[in-house]
Structures are given as structure tokens and as C-alpha cells.
């Protein structure tokens, strides 16, 4: 033991000898804060009356941290913090670029809305079983996935958010939920295991897990190593997480079963993590292979869009219909990834952010509507417009935003995507996007006409005018609706951010430089 002191070791070869600058800690703060707040809430889980207050406060702080992180990245470009001060690629690095910061901030806002909405949507039993701790841990997983710069670490965050999503999904333990959760759990496990298999192979080939290091080493290895196999495995794994056709069956089987706030959160956030991982791994790390696979992804995208919306059209249950529409939206983002051009990627990034906000809001709105009319079935509901006109119009606005009609935020990413596909002559992809938009309009138009506009059927119980909507539900839903309207009317900042984020994925020199300050840009 005493011998270790005899050899002189130059620590600066392996470690940052100076302490990490305080400002760099910002990149791990969203994750650390969520875990800390989740742990506190877990200890207080029997004090159901203070759970919601602490939970919402913690989510507000999370939004502030996300905003600070976003502000710094937007002004100064990507930056990195390594754990334990080990120099990359030895230590686990958290690297944030504009894409990660943008998605983290959007997801933080959605989670805040969900936290507020959940105050009355989740009863005290649900709170005692840990709705708020699970929500915070889910956000730790989501933020970690968006911010990490290490691919095995990405896998770990996937598992963190997956296990918290299991907890949220079975909250309440009704028969429907157990059934839905069984399918969700097994199929998602296969997805993440495929991710782990691919990562194992990746380490075998590259000898590194740091994303910037992979970027540097990929050009030499491309000649000899079977990178295409690796990328196909990643594509399958992430497509499963994103619920892309033909591996999307777990989503409509489970997303309508849990509490509405949970459905909204899942519909908004979880599938987008798959899209984020596709953007990060396929577009940023393996652009050559992605170009080769472009037509495969395009076919998947078209299938996802069309089968998603056709499934939605066939449903009687509004929540299940919305579940299929989530899938259809994933197809739009895949179309952008298939194109791979800066404008296509910008469209996909904008659409992902828009979809996080709008899908969550639609689940919330449909949930309030379903509770007011007493049924989620199109054949049995109706009369919401007569009793709650403002809710009916809010829902209509969200529906139109999803279909991509002006003046809501859904219009712009669709315009960007259609233009990007026409620019490279992929007219059929543009046509699929437009046809899907048309079918979506029919689907949501039918839901609105039957469940909201139509008077209640003869013989159904009296109009539910006296049932009130809790204030927290109004705030949660209102927040998200305001976001989609504001960014529909004033889209320039989001378009600029999406374009910058897309450029950051294609020109990776600033990402690599933030991890390896001395590296010569390729």
C-alpha cells in the first residue's frame, strides 16, 4: 500500500486539476434537482396535502434551471462537465448543446403543467402511492437523457425514466391499467435491451462511449467496422421507443389506461425521447449511415403517419384515438430525420417541441371533457359545447394546432417539413404529410363534432352543466394552450432555435470542441 506514493503520477494527464467552474454545474442541475426533490417527496409521501405544493414548487425551480441552461447555451454554445473531474473520454461527460437545452426546457414546461394538472386529477391514494416522486424521477430521466454526452449514460437515463413510467402507469391498479402496463412494460424492455446490445457492440468497436469521442473516431473506423449493423440496431431500438410503425403496438394498448395526467405526460414526453435519441445517434454520430438508410426511415415515416391516423379514425374511445394520433405525429418527425437536410431536421425539432406541448394538452382537454360528459366513447358523449363552451373552443384550438392549421404552432413545422421534402424532390413524402394532415383533420373534426358540438343523446343523463372543472386543471391546460397559440402567432424565435439546433447536429465541431478543447475540428 505504501508503494503507491513512490511513483510520481502526473494527474493532469487524466484529470482536470482545477475545480469545475461553478457555471458548468448548471448542466447537471436539472437532473440533480429532480432526484433530490423526488427523494424528499418520497420521504413525505404520506403527507398527501403538502405533496402537490412541494411537487409544483420543485417543477417551477426545474423550469428556472432549464431556462438558465437554455439561456447560457443559446448565448455561449455547447458546454461540457465531466463527472469526478476525469478528462473525457474517461469520465462520464454531460454535454449540452442547443438541441438538448431546447428539449429540456420544453419538457420542463410540460412537466410543470402536468404537476399543476395532477393536483386534482390524482386523488390522495394516488399521491400516497407516489405520483409526485415518480413525476420528479421521470423528469430526472428525461432531463438526463437530453443532457448526457455519454451513450451508456443515455441508456441508464432511459431506464430511469422507464422505471418511473411503470410506476406512473400502474398508479391506481385498475384492471385496465394492469393489462396496458403488461404490454407496455414487456415491449419497452425489449426496446431498451436492444439499445443495450447496440451499445455493447459500439463499445467493442470504438472502445469509447463518449459521444464526442465517437464522432472523432467514426471516420477511421467506417472503412473496417460494421457500423451499418450497429446503426440498424439503434434504429430498431429507438424506433421502438418512439412507437414508429411497425413496432408501435404497445402505445395504443397502454396510453389510454392510466390517469389522464399520466397519459398526457407520456403522450407528450416519452415518445419524443426516442426521436431525440434518433437525432442524437443517427443524425449526429452516424450521418453517413443515416444517409444510406434514408429511404428506409422515409418508408417507416410514411407508414407511421398513415397507419397512425387511420388507427385514430377507427376508434370509438377518444383517448385511444389520441394515442394513435401521437403515433402519427412521430411519423412527421421521422420524415424530417429521413430527409436529414438542415431544413428537414429543423422541421422535425420544431415539430417535436410543438408535439410535446400539444399532445399533453390534448390529453388534458380530452380528459376534462370526458369527465364532464361521463364517457370517453364517441357514441355516448356529447353536449360539452352546450355546457362548457370555453373548454370546447380550447379543445378545438388544440385539435387544429395538431392538424397544422393556422394560426397555431402546428402549422410552421409542417410547412418546414413539406418544403424540405420538396426541396430534395421527395414529393411522395410531402404528399404523405399533407394527406396525413387531411385525415387528422377529419379525425379530430369528427371527435369534436360528436363529443363536443352534438347535443346529448336522448335518454342519456342530464347535461352536466353543474359539474365544475377544478382550477388546477384550467391552469395546467391553459398554460399549454397559451404556448401553442403564442408560438403559432409568433414562430420566428422557435424557427431560429430549431434551425440552429439542426445546424449543431450537422456541423458538430462546436460539440466536439466543448468536450475536447484541443481537438482540431474535422
Amino acid at each position, binding site marked *: 500500500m505504501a508503494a503507491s506514493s513512490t511513483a510520481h503520477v502526473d494527474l493532469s494527464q487524466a484529470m482536470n486539476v482545477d475545480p469545475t467552474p461553478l457555471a458548468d454545474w448548471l448542466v447537471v442541475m436539472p437532473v440533480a434537482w429532480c432526484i433530490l426533490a423526488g427523494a424528499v417527496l418520497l420521504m413525505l409521501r404520506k403527507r398527501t396535502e403538502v405533496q402537490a405544493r412541494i411537487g409544483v414548487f420543485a417543477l417551477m425551480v426545474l423550469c428556472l434551471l432549464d431556462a438558465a441552461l437554455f439561456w447560457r447555451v443559446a448565448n455561449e454554445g455547447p458546454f461540457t462537465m465531466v463527472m469526478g473531474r476525469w478528462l473525457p473520454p474517461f469520465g462520464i461527460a454531460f454535454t449540452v448543446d442547443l438541441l438538448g437545452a431546447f428539449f429540456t426546457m420544453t419538457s420542463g414546461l410540460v412537466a410543470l403543467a402536468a404537476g399543476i394538472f395532477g393536483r386534482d386529477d390524482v386523488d390522495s391514494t394516488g399521491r400516497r402511492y407516489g405520483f409526485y416522486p415518480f413525476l420528479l424521477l421521470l423528469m430526472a430521466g428525461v432531463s438526463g437523457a437530453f443532457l448526457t454526452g455519454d451513450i451508456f449514460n443515455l441508456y441508464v437515463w432511459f431506464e430511469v425514466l422507464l*422505471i418511473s413510467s411503470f410506476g406512473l402507469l400502474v398508479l391506481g391498479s385498475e384492471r385496465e391499467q*394492469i393489462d396496458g402496463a*403488461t*404490454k407496455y412494460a414487456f415491449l419497452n424492455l425489449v426496446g431498451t435491451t436492444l439499445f443495450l446490445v447496440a451499445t*455493447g457492440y459500439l*463499445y467493442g468497436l470504438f472502445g469509447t462511449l463518449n459521444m464526442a469521442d465517437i464522432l472523432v473516431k467514426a471516420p477511421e473506423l467506417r472503412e473496417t467496422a460494421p457500423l451499418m449493423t450497429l446503426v440498424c440496431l439503434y434504429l430498431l431500438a429507438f424506433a421502438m421507443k418512439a412507437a414508429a410503425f411497425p413496432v408501435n403496438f404497445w402505445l395504443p394498448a397502454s396510453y389510454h389506461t392510466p390517469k389522464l395526467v399520466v397519459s398526457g405526460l407520456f403522450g407528450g414526453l416519452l415518445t419524443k425521447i426516442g426521436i431525440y435519441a434518433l437525432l442524437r445517434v443517427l443524425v449526429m454520430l452516424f450521418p453517413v449511415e443515416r444517409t444510406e438508410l434514408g429511404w428506409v426511415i422515409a418508408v417507416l415515416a410514411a407508414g407511421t403517419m398513415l397507419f397512425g391516423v387511420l388507427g385514430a379514425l377507427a376508434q370509438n374511445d377518444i383517448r385511444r384515438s389520441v394515442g394513435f394520433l401521437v403515433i402519427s405525429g412521430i411519423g412527421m418527425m421521422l420524415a424530417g430525420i429521413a430527409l436529414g437536410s438542415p431544413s428537414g431536421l429543423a422541421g422535425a425539432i420544431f415539430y417535436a417541441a410543438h408535439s410535446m406541448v400539444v399532445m399533453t394538452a390534448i390529453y388534458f382537454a380530452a380528459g376534462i371533457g370526458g369527465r364532464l360528459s361521463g364517457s370517453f366513447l364517441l357514441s355516448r358523449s356529447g353536449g360539452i359545447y352546450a355546457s362548457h363552451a370555453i373548454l370546447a373552443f380550447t379543445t378545438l384550438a388544440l385539435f387544429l394546432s395538431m392538424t397544422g392549421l393556422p394560426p397555431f404552432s402546428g402549422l410552421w413545422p409542417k410547412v418546414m417539413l413539406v418544403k424540405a421534402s420538396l426541396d430534395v424532390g421527395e414529393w411522395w413524402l410531402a404528399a404523405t404529410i399533407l394527406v396525413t394532415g387531411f385525415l387528422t383533420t377529419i379525425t379530430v373534426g369528427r371527435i369534436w363534432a360528436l363529443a363536443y358540438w352534438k347535443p346529448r343523446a336522448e335518454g342519456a343523463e342530464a347535461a352536466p352543466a353543474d359539474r365544475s372543472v377544478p382550477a388546477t386543471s384550467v391552469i395546467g391546460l391553459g398554460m399549454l394552450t397559451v404556448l401553442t397559440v403564442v408560438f403559432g402567432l409568433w414562430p420566428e424565435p422557435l424557427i431560429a432555435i430549431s434551425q440552429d439546433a439542426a445546424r449543431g447536429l450537422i456541423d458538430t465541431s462546436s460539440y466536439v470542441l466543448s468536450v475536447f478543447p484541443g481537438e482540431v475540428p474535422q
Partner: protein
Amino acid sequence: MEPLFALLVGALFAVSIYLFLSKHIIRVLMGVAILGNAVNLLIFTNGRLLREVPPVIPVDEATLQQAAANPLPQALILTAIVISFSFFAFLLVLGYRAFQELETDDTDEMRVAEPVDEEAPPLGY
């Protein structure tokens, strides 16, 4: 040594996929357990297999003197074992609860969330 392990990993994957294709939750659960082990073994094999050579640098040297097994995949496996074990525990309970609540472990009969006899959506206004 590595080719043998590669074959073993392949065999384990084949067994787990076969079990996954079953309609019965209990078999799928066994598939999950085997899948976890197959993946861990795969990563383990990736890090070279050598007997009795710990990757320890002698006192007066700066680098390793001989080829040794890479310890990082083993660290990765430790993480993956913990995760796959906790998943398996969760799925086991979930499968058992599903059997209690739905009174079946045949996935064809698990149609509570997606009822077979659901009403068709209204065809007119």
C-alpha cells in the same frame, strides 16, 4: 475462448426470443431473465476474455505490461445487471398481478384495455 462465448450468447438470444414469442406471460418472463443474461454476457465477451490477468499496473511502470481483460465492460455489466434485475422483479410482480386481476396469463385473452366487443364509432352525426 471468444468464439465459444459468441455461440453461447447466440444460443441464449435464440432461447429468449423463442420464449418471448409465447402467448403465456410466465414464459415471456423467463425469456426476460435469459435475455438480460444474454446481453450481459455479450458485453462481457466484448471486453476480451483472459484468465487470471488482473489489469493492475506494477509499481515502477506507467502502463500495463500485458494484454488484460478490459474492466470497463465489466463495470457496464454491473450497472446492467442491477437494472435488468430490478426490471425482472417488477415484471414478475406485474405478471402476477395481471394473473390475479385478469385471471389469465394468456396474452390473447388479455383484452381488458382493448375490448374485443367495443362499440363501433358512430357512422353519422
